[in-house]
Every structure is written in structure tokens, then in C-alpha cells.
């Protein structure tokens, strides 16, 4: 079985991102995973513990010497050294800004083929193959390298994390190239709603559009989401109008979601919005306009006013509980 290199990325504070679980479960479909982590000396123990809990059995640690404020360059140096050390058949990283760039730069460095935003991986005759869902889920494509290893970035939330705590084999990578290049000048916390499920992995999503009319009106989406245990999403028009934060945008230029249930409130269903949600299992839409395109793909569509129907629905769900 070939070796598969897993690039575990960390946030600015050195915490391993949760996505490592997704990467490990994908990596196991291809071969024997080896996880590489770039961490400051004081972060190493926590990092090893986290990746182990997520199922990593072989861990390579590359120690960061600088402040670690901007980690991508250090992660690239770590990935380069790890690649040379283990000679993998595939390299996996998460398809998030930053992590996917580390993977792509590694591919340039080592002259390997690159496949981005894969939703699944498998091997055929020992060669890794990546499966992609493209053009808003209207096509499924498989790709592979014509020769040599395949560097793959995996869509966030594409596979459940398969965490099995093990006793890891930990080794260190030495003599890394110096990596500070980008300076972090300031950081501002954005209010995040930690109580709701993450949009990328949620099984239920309630999205609001311009039809919610204002930031206060948009809270209706949040109330229904809480009643359903769902994540909140938004259309680009709602984001542009300032009703919702940009990280909630669903669509072609936002997040792609494929939950069990997608509820669209006051969203017209422009083609660019549909591209981010049309592979959802069940689609529900409420719109005043009987000609709204979202109704053409809804399993259950209601022509009506969200401000009357949604509060009634929340009460009805409460009553049935």
C-alpha cells in the first residue's frame, strides 16, 4: 500500500483545524496516511494529541521558529520536507483558502499533477483518482495524474471524520527553509455564532435572501434554523445588503452545500445561488413570487409571505414536539 501525505493545517493560534479528520478518512481510501504538522515548540504536544484523536497513526512534526502569525509558508516548507521524506502516491489537503494554496504550491515545486475540490477519492490499479462535483453539481468528473503523484484538495465537509485514537509514531523534520514573508498587522474578531452547526457540514440549512428585507428580518432565518437544528445560510444579495456575514453566502461564489434539508426563505433562486445548493436532498422554498426560479427545483414550494408563514411554522414545530 502506498503512502499518502496528509497536510494538517492549523489556524493562526496553532490549533489544528477540524478538517484533519475528513482528510484522514479520505486518505485511508488511498493508502497509508502520514500526517505532517507545522507547529511551534510549545504547540507540538497539543498538535500531536489532536491529530491522534482524529485518527493519525504516523505524524511528522516540523517545528516553526518564527512567531507563527502567518503559517502558510511554514506549512509549505514542512510539506516539502515531508514529501521528500515519505515519497507518497498522493498528497491531501483541505480545500480552504490557505490550505489549498499550500498544496498547489507544493504541486508546482515537485512538478506533480493537481486536482482541486475533490468530493471523494479512490484508487484504480493503485493510482489515485479524485472525484469532483462541478458546475454547481450538474456534472461529476473523475481526474487523475498522467504520471507521478496526485496532489488533491478535499472539499470541506466531503466526508465524515473517522476518528480512532491510536498510539502515534511521531518523528521530526529538521533543517527547514526559513519561511517568514507575510506580516500580520492586526486581527479583529468577527462575531461568530458557535451554537449553530457549521454551514459546510450541516445536515440542515436555512438560508435567507433579500426577501427578508433587513438585518432584523433576517433573524427569522436564524429562528427557523434553531427550531430545526440547522445552520444559517444566505444569498449573495442578503450578504451584499449587510443582513448576513459573507462566510454564510451559499452559491457559486460562496459555500457549496448538500444537506438533507435546504430551506430557502425569500430567495429568488438565481442560477448562481442554485449552483451552491441544488444537490441538497430535500429543498423547501417560500417565496411571494410564483415565478421565482427556486420553485422550479423545490420539493416543497410555498407561494406566500415568509413573515406570516415562518412564525406559524416555528409554532407548529414547537407544538408537535
Amino acid at each position, binding site marked *: 500500500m502506498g503512502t499518502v501525505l496528509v497536510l494538517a493545517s492549523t489556524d493562526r493560534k496553532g490549533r489544528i483545524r477540524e478538517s484533519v479528520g475528513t482528510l484522514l478518512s479520505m486518505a485511508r481510501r488511498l493508502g497509508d496516511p502520514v500526517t505532517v504538522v507545522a507547529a511551534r515548540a510549545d504547540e507540538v504536544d497539543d498538535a500531536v494529541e489532536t491529530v491522534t484523536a482524529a485518527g493519525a497513526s504516523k505524524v511528522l512534526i516540523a517545528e516553526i521558529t518564527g512567531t507563527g502569525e502567518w503559517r502558510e509558508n511554514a506549512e509549505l516548507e514542512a510539506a516539502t520536507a515531508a514529501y521528500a521524506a515519505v515519497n507518497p502516491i498522493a498528497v491531501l489537503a483541505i480545500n480552504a483558502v490557505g490550505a489549498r494554496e499550500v498544496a498547489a*504550491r507544493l504541486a508546482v*515545486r515537485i512538478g506533480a*499533477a493537481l486536482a482541486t*475540490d475533490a468530493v471523494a477519492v479512490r484508487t484504480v490499479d493503485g493510482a489515485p483518482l479524485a472525484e469532483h462535483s462541478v458546475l454547481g453539481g450538474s456534472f461529476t468528473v473523475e481526474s487523475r495524474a498522467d504520471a507521478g503523484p496526485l496532489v488533491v484538495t478535499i472539499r470541506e465537509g466531503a466526508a465524515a471524520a473517522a476518528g480512532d485514537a491510536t498510539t502515534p509514531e511521531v518523528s521530526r523534520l529538521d533543517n527547514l527553509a526559513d519561511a517568514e514573508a507575510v*506580516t500580520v498587522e492586526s486581527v479583529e474578531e468577527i462575531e461568530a455564532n458557535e451554537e449553530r452547526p457549521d454551514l459546510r457540514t450541516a445536515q440542515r440549512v436555512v438560508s435567507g435572501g433579500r426577501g427578508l428585507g433587513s438585518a432584523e428580518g433576517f433573524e427569522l432565518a436564524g429562528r427557523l434554523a434553531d427550531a430545526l437544528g440547522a445552520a444559517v445560510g444566505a444569498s449573495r444579495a442578503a450578504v451584499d445588503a449587510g443582513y448576513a456575514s*459573507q462566510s454564510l453566502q451559499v452559491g*457559486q461564489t460562496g459555500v457549496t452545500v448538500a444537506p438533507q434539508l435546504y430551506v430557502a426563505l425569500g430567495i429568488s433562486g438565481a442560477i448562481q445561488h442554485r449552483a451552491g445548493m441544488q444537490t441538497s436532498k430535500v429543498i423547501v422554498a417560500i417565496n411571494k413570487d410564483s415565478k421565482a426560479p427556486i420553485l*422550479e427545483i423545490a420539493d416543497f414550494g410555498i407561494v*406566500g409571505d415568509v413573515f406570516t408563514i415562518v412564525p406559524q411554522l416555528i409554532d407548529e414545530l414547537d407544538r408537535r414536539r
Partner: protein
Amino acid sequence: MRILVLIKQVPDTWGDRRLDPASGRIDRHEPEPVIDEIGERAVEVALRYRDGSEAEVVVLTMGPESATDMLRRVLAMGVDRAIHVVDPALEGADMMTTATVLAAAIRHAGFDVVVAGNESSDGRGGVLPAMVAEHLGVHHLTGLDEVVIDEESVRGVRVVGSERVTVRAALPAIISVTERSPEARIAGFRGIMQAKKKPLERFSLADISAELPARRSIVTTVEQAPIRTAGTTIVDSGDAAVQLADFLTSQRLV
């Protein structure tokens, strides 16, 4: 200061985009090819800096003959000149090939800052600026919602998780902007007339000394997903909420 802006011709996202089942490549004829919206915003970011300086703004694209129309359009917005890399060997180029060729063209043209969009609306790879940076050995700041360029550096705001991080890198550098950056200006009649006289250079791979990468990714299978159809649609007459709750119950969603 020379600012190079990377733009791309893509099938209009307002149309029904398709893949060619044989090659797995995007059908570049239907719907109509247009400039990718994010590229227009990248041009706007460059022009806003140029409005208050002596900088030269140059757009660069790699693409088929038809991309010339798009280049004329951005010249009309106020861009100084355009570079078009067009070569039969580039048909069906993967990201590795594209990054290699763009880097060769950028090196050939010379630059202080390269501005790109964060993701194209067709490929959605979101890795090209970083790959070009790797080729050129320069810094890259990507996914920026706000950008400030000065003589020595570029600074920008990137949202990562629940943080807005302000980052800075020395020039030369490549940056990519998100759709949070300002919308493109509209070309006026004067701009359209001037654009006709502006330089539009065409280069082949040999002209820019570009060598194609040895390894590439290839598409092995293409499958079209079934088209979604409408289920039940009701008009609210007072009991829509109850009917919806019944539907959700029947689907075991509540």
C-alpha cells in the same frame, strides 16, 4: 509602478453551463463567453490605485482568439494595454499548465504587483495566484476583501474563520481579490473610442519562452447529474405552515 491584472474569459454564469462529455472540458461556446466578473473587479482594484498615481495598468489573459473582445472591453474601462497569450498548444490546459504559462508571460512583461480574482467562476480552483507566486518566487496575499497598494508594499484584509486579518507583504507580490471588492466601472463612449488605439499584444508560447509542465492532471470520466424537477407547490391560504410541517414530518426531517 506596473500593475498586471489577470483576467479570464468564461461561459456566462447566467446561462446553462455544460461539460463536453468526451473531453471533460467546459463547453466554451455555450453560453456566450464573457469576462469573469471577479476579473473585472480585479481590474477595478488596479484602476483605483492608478487613478491617484503614475502607475501603468496592463491586463493579461491566456485564452482563445475570442478573448480579444474581452480585452477591448477592459481597455475601454481605462486599462493602458493588454497582453493576450494565445497558442493552439494551450487548448484544454490544466491548472499546472495555466500557472506555468501565466508566470512566463508575467516575467516577460515585468511587474510590481499582479492582481487576480480569487476563484474563476468556471474552474473554481482558487489556487492559480499561489501557483504563479511559487513560479515567480514572490509573495502572495490572496482572498483579500480590501486592498491598499503603495510604492513598497501591498496590504489587505482576509477573513479566515472568525477573524479579519490585516496582512502585508513587500513588493513584488501577487494578490487576489474577492467579490467584496468594488464593482467594476462602466466604460464610457470616450473610453471605447480610445480603446481602439491602445496596444494589444499577442504572444505565442515561444514568444514568452514558456515551457509546458511535464505532468498534468487528466479527466477520466464525466457524468451529468439528473436534472432537478419541481415537487409540490402550494399557494398559502392560511394553512401552508401546517402543510409544510406535515411534509417535513413525512420526510422524517422533524
